[in-house]
């Protein structure tokens, strides 16, 4: 039967004379896997609940996130801690689906030329990020990261925030009318308070309207706010979950 199909002058030979049929069969072949893999994800996809404490980025963090995208940070930094003991110790609790529900686009990355950033929030003070972006070698002597000194000079652009947030709301991010209307003021307030903090920590003045404040706000937001979980790092004796994780690395 199979031989009848593939032998010289077999049935396949007939199809080779019918480009339209051939094209339809090819399209069918690629659609099977596509449908099988996507149907469940999209049917139940909307049902993946956000973990408690997970919220869309604040207006300033959103600006920072878009700067992170524009600079291509995701080309060298992942944001996806895998469920391995060594990653939980190095970075923090492993990443859950329920904490990525507001990520469009996702920024999980595929390469760690630098460390994972999914849990970098709160790890360093704001001033550290300012210094580090200005010259990575000033905080991490062996770092090979490019300098982002221009972010300390370039002005923050906030005027397009309401438009961006309206678009994101249409895509399912739960921004309220008030948040969207006051987006610029909200961003400015967060930037002012962070910039004041940087000055307090002994850093440079007049950064409130600079890109560096937004990218810092975004990086500081990358944390497991939702997490009430024990990590391998916290626990002297591995919990059941961490044990499972340890097995995965064997």
């Amino acid at each position, binding site marked *: 039967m199979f031989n009848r199909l593939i032998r010289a002058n077999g049935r396949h030979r007939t199809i080779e004379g019918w480009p339209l049929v051939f094209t339809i069969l090819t399209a069918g072949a690629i659609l099977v896997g596509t449908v099988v893999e996507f149907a469940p994800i999209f049917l139940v996809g909307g049902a993946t609940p956000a973990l408690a404490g997970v919220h869309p980025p604040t207006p300033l963090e959103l600006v920072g996130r878009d700067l992170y*995208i524009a600079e291509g940070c995701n080309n060298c930094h*992942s944001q996806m801690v895998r469920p391995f003991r060594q990653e939980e110790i190095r970075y923090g609790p492993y990443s859950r689906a329920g904490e990525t529900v507001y990520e469009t686009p996702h920024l999980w990355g595929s390469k*760690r030329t630098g460390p994972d950033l999914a849990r970098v929030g709160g790890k360093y003070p704001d001033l550290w990020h300012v210094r580090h972006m200005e010259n990575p070698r000033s905080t991490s002597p062996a770092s090979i990261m490019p300098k982002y000194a221009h972010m300390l000079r370039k002005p923050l652009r906030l005027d397009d925030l309401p438009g961006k947030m309206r678009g994101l709301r249409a895509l399912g991010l739960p921004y309220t009318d008030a948040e969207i209307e006051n987006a610029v003021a909200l961003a400015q307030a967060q930037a002012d308070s962070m910039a004041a903090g940087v000055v307090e920590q002994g850093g440079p003045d007049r950064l409130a309207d600079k890109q560096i404040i937004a990218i810092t706000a975004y990086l500081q937001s990358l944390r497991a706010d939702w997490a009430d979980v024990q990590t391998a790092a916290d626990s002297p004796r591995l919990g059941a979950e961490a044990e499972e994780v340890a097995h995965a690395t064997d």
Partner: protein
Amino acid sequence: MADAPTAPLIHHADAPDRAAASGASRFEVFSYDDRIVRLFVVATIIWSFVGMLVGLLLAIQLPFPAFNLGEYLSFGRLRPLHTNAVIFAFAGNAIFAAIYYSTQRLCKARMFSDAMSKFHFWGWQGIIVAAAITLPLGITTSKEYAELEWPIDIAIAVVWVVFAVNFFGTLWKRREKHMYVALWFYIATIVTVAVLHIGNSLALPISLTKSYPIYKGVQDALVQWWYGHNAVAFFLTTPFLGLMYYFLPKAAERPVFSYRLSIVHFWSLVFIYIWAGPHHLNYTAVPEWAATLGMVFSVMLWMPSWGGMINGLFTLRGAWHKLRDSVVLKMFVVGITFYGMATFEGPMLSIKTVNALSHYTDWNIAHVHSGALGWNGFMTFGMIYWLVPKLWRQPLWSQKMATWHFWIGTVGILLYVLAMYASGVTQGLMWRAFDAAGRLVYPDFTETVVQVLPMYWVRMVGGCMYLAGVVLMMVNVWKTVRSAPKQLPDPAVAVPRAHAAPATA
């Protein structure tokens, strides 16, 4: 060119004696559009230099951060420019050259529309230039190999549809009843790339330069790697297999090894490849079943991939001695061998236990470069060295220089991948190293960076050699073209009208 043994699958498009054809109404006379192929060949050569030069700059930036030349030329912004230039500009123009040359001959028909061919060529170059401008400006979607923003995405879709109409129109008016295997692979390429590009690029525009994908979180990741993996499959694999099936038998003057194998491996490759995407997301927040399914299909993919390699290499049975004198065949053999290595490595890397070590490391960089430089690069160079003398009707300026290109390129790519294997495995092992007390041996990430810097220097040297080979090719082709005849009329072909079978379906 000596006559090859006749085989059902090899079409000899050589024009019959024109004198015999002229005036005889039993013959149909038409010409092939070779001008468009020349344009695509020239574009391929220029963009290969540009794309790899950017790659070399990136390779220098890693060990020497001072080479991040300001905001617009820093690693994060240039990396997508490098990948887009090599995939869509270099490999893209190469497959268009292959498709426009071989489809006309395999169909015994001129392309459906010269205007569409021109629109395709200039539209595609315009898209590349737009990418080269927007990416350094930081205008990017961040989605890997799909970084271009929505206006450019729409342009890509339009140009691709015109290309598709032009291609299928040519199939429609073909004078050969049966489609040769190369055409099957071109069909799979054109259909699937359209589906992938549109499916992955759906986004909500916010302004002319900014959009957000309609997918979020897990969905966005799965759609992205369905696209990302199958861009490798249907932009860098299937069209190059089509290229192999046409140009390798031509250059070797041998029929393809096995017709049955070509059927079996074509359909299994096309069916299985599309499932493999989620192996890019092993151990991430995507559902476990999806990642496992991706892994299982990736392992299965090994066999249809090697079906292609075997059909290619075995086509040279009884003709291996020709490698000694033919730089074209040398290039093809190294290209197909790298294809075999990369398609063994890919399934292996998709296995979770291996992936746990290799993911996020330079091992992936080695893997993609053995694909892009080893397989796509060498297949393209082989095709160019075979095509240029035919398209410009002038023997290649220097065979010796072409042979130098072959050797310097081969040593270069080997240095590149070996350095990155060493670097990748080193990173993977250092990140997971525990001491006896259960603490990380290298808690400071930069320790693992410093450790691999020597490998980055070796990679830089390897990349430099590969690029030097490309420069030799540029000089060689330039010298050949300069001494070519001024007038290059399209080759005319005559076929007996009796042969002109009406296209069915």
